[in-house]
């Protein structure tokens, strides 16, 4: 009766905005995918194979309830004793005994020993109810966990009675409004070995632990959640030193804030290629390249720049230890040790093979939450990619979303094989990133030179140039690469090309000089010719003048002679008339 009314209320409520009442489990991520936690006052089945974390889920649900949500809890365990359980969770930082002492938690270990028990005639499990009721009353419990109630099937020989009692138990839990987690072993074909899901239809969570390529991953799936929307995917989860955590795929929504702020890459020339301003804050940058192409150096520059401007950077290294990186980077003039000392640079190095993929990303999550950096560098992510590519894709997407959501700029380096199949991998990841910087080795003329170009950079007019990437004692410099006849010259080839150019220029100049000399010689020749002609001309002129003069002199002389002769003859007037 009570149930029916509750259900109708739920249906009505789910149409309106406020949904089914939920109790937060306190388990990181779980409350996000279920939209608030477990259904309040109802039983939830958590099923899965051995070692998948059922008990841990139940324990954390109770402990978080007691410590964080003020809801005392009862743990009824059928497999492990209270001491065993408290010891198990102690390693996760939970002090069960103190909760028990404070009356926030009640542990009851139900020991079932079939060999001790003889059955004669009819019986029921009223003792279980008495115990549960006593436990609930003694701490005022709001939460109950039954870890693994199915164990009773091995202890008693009357399945019909047991089923009836289990049905009664779930009814009892509901009637008492207890938010309950019931763990159950996975069956061959069914969710639970004894079909408990038949009795509990409100919420079923399936846990899974599988091993792929020697790497184990844990998955969680909400099989059903009556009266509530929930994520239906398989979510990876982890059990680490902080307890249970589920990694929700936050990218269900793609709506993180974006920033117009720019941050420098720490390499001036690279900033120049990115509109002179650098990366967008909160964007993701992929630096890919073959081994030894300088990926880590680019990353170190970025870290250096971030710390220099007084911001925090988290550097996660999968290949080199902290000491090794700082030493190596000193050779290119980057002193990272000072920032580590100042607490601006969080440097964490661990082996990629140390954990599965989820664990790595969860650790990064934890570190980010703890350290609150503005920049996260993962160097390199390639080592994580040994696993299934799809998984890596999904995981990276989660990580990027997580970082973007917090406006953290992320730089990943990735190792690519020379023209290998890995190009595909690059594409897989690169579609997730905003800026992709490619470092490439060019092997020409017996040397290997580094080149850098910006393959893509969303939202900015980035340079399309291929620049030569030079590591010097003062860090990275990008030289404008020599581009001639469609080829990029780098290193000595560039020097040779430059020398060739110089020689060419010199030769041209020499030719010109020769021409000039030749011309001037010709000019002088012509000029002398002109002079000769001129002198010829002038000599002709003077000859003519002389002849003219001679002629006039002769005429004068003739006239004089005639006059003389006339004088001598004595005739004058006739001549005078003639002359006028």
């Amino acid at each position, binding site marked *: 009766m009570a149930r029916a009314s509750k259900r109708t209320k739920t249906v009505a409520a789910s149409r309106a905005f406020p949904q089914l009442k939920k109790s937060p489990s306190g388990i990181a991520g779980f409350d996000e995918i279920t939209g608030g936690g477990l259904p309040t006052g109802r039983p939830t089945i958590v099923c899965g194979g051995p070692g998948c974390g059922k008990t841990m889920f139940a324990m954390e649900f109770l402990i978080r309830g007691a410590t964080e949500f003020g809801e005392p809890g009862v743990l009824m365990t059928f497999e492990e004793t209270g001491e065993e359980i408290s010891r198990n969770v102690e390693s996760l930082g939970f002090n069960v005994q103190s909760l028990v002492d404070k009356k926030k938690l009640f542990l*009851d270990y*139900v*020991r*079932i020993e079939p060999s*001790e*028990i*003889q*059955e*004669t*005639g*009819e*019986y*029921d*499990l*009223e*003792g*279980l109810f*008495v*115990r549960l*009721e*006593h*436990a609930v009353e003694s701490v005022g419990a709001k939460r109950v966990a039954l870890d693994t109630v199915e164990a*009773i099937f091995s*202890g*008693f020989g009357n399945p019909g009675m047991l089923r009836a009692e289990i049905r009664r138990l779930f009814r009892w839990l509901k009637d008492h409004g207890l938010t309950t987690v019931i763990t159950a072993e996975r069956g061959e074909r069914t969710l639970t070995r004894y079909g408990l899901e038949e009795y509990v239809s409100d919420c079923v969570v399936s846990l899974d632990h599988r091993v792929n390529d020697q790497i184990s991953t844990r998955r969680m799936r909400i099989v059903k959640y009556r009266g509530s929307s929930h994520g239906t995917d398989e979510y990876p989860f982890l059990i680490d030193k902080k307890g249970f955590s589920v990694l929700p795929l936050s990218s269900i929504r793609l709506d993180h804030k974006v920033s117009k702020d720019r941050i420098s890459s720490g390499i001036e020339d690279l900033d120049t290629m990115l509109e002179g301003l650098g990366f967008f804050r909160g964007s993701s940058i992929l630096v890919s390249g073959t081994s030894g192409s300088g990926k880590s150096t680019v990353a170190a520059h970025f870290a250096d720049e971030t710390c220099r401007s007084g911001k925090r950077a988290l550097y996660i290294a999968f290949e080199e230890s902290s000491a090794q990186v700082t030493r190596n980077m000193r050779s290119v003039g980057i002193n990272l040790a000072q920032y580590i000392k100042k607490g601006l640079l969080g440097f964490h190095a661990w082996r990629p093979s140390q954990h599965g993929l989820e664990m790595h990303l969860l650790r990064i999550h934890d570190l980010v939450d703890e350290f609150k950096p503005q920049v996260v560098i993962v160097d390199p992510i390639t080592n994580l990619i040994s696993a299934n590519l799809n998984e890596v894709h999904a995981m990276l997407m989660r990580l990027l979303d997580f970082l973007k959501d917090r406006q953290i700029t992320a730089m990943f380096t990735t190792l690519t094989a020379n023209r290998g199949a890995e190009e595909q991998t690059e594409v897989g990841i690169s579609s997730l990133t905003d800026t992709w910087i490619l470092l490439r080795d060019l092997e020409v003329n017996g040397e290997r030179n580094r080149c850098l170009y910006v393959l893509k950079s969303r939202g900015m007019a980035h340079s399309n140039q291929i620049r030569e990437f030079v590591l010097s004692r003062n860090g990275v410099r990008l030289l404008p690469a020599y581009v001639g006849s469609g080829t990029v010259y780098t290193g000595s080839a560039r020097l040779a090309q430059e020398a060739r150019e110089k020689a060419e220029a010199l030769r041209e100049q020499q030719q010109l000089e020769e021409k000039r000399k030749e011309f001037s010689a010709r000019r002088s020749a012509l000029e002398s010719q002109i002079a000769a002609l001129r002198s010829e001309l002038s000599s002709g002129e003077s000859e003519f003048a002389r002849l003219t003069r001679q002629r006039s002199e002769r005429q004068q002389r003739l006239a004089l002679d005639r006059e003389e002769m006339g004088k001598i003859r004595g005739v004058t007037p006739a001549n005078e008339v003639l002359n006028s």
Partner: protein
Amino acid sequence: MRSSKVKAKPPKAQATGNATDVVLELRLYVAGQTPKSLIALKNLKKICEEHLQGRYRLHVIDLVKTPQLAQDDQILAIPTLVRNLPQPIRKIIGDLSDTQRVLVGLDVRSQAK
């Protein structure tokens, strides 16, 4: 001890010279006056009279009144008859309608022919 309702049957006399000389310490756990519990108690009394004269002590424990004992004594099924002594502990669940099984469960040989 901690039981509320004690129906102790102190041994009337020392038992006859038998190996099953030891006094059985029995407890019957019930939860209220349910039909099953009443039947079990009736059956148990009969068995004790017929087969265990003077060799037993019986306590009837009502868990409704002392729920704590259910946890302490690991009781799940109701009714449960527990033989605490001699060691090891033995448990017989049900309404004790099958006398032979009860005796086997208590590890006592029938004295009545």
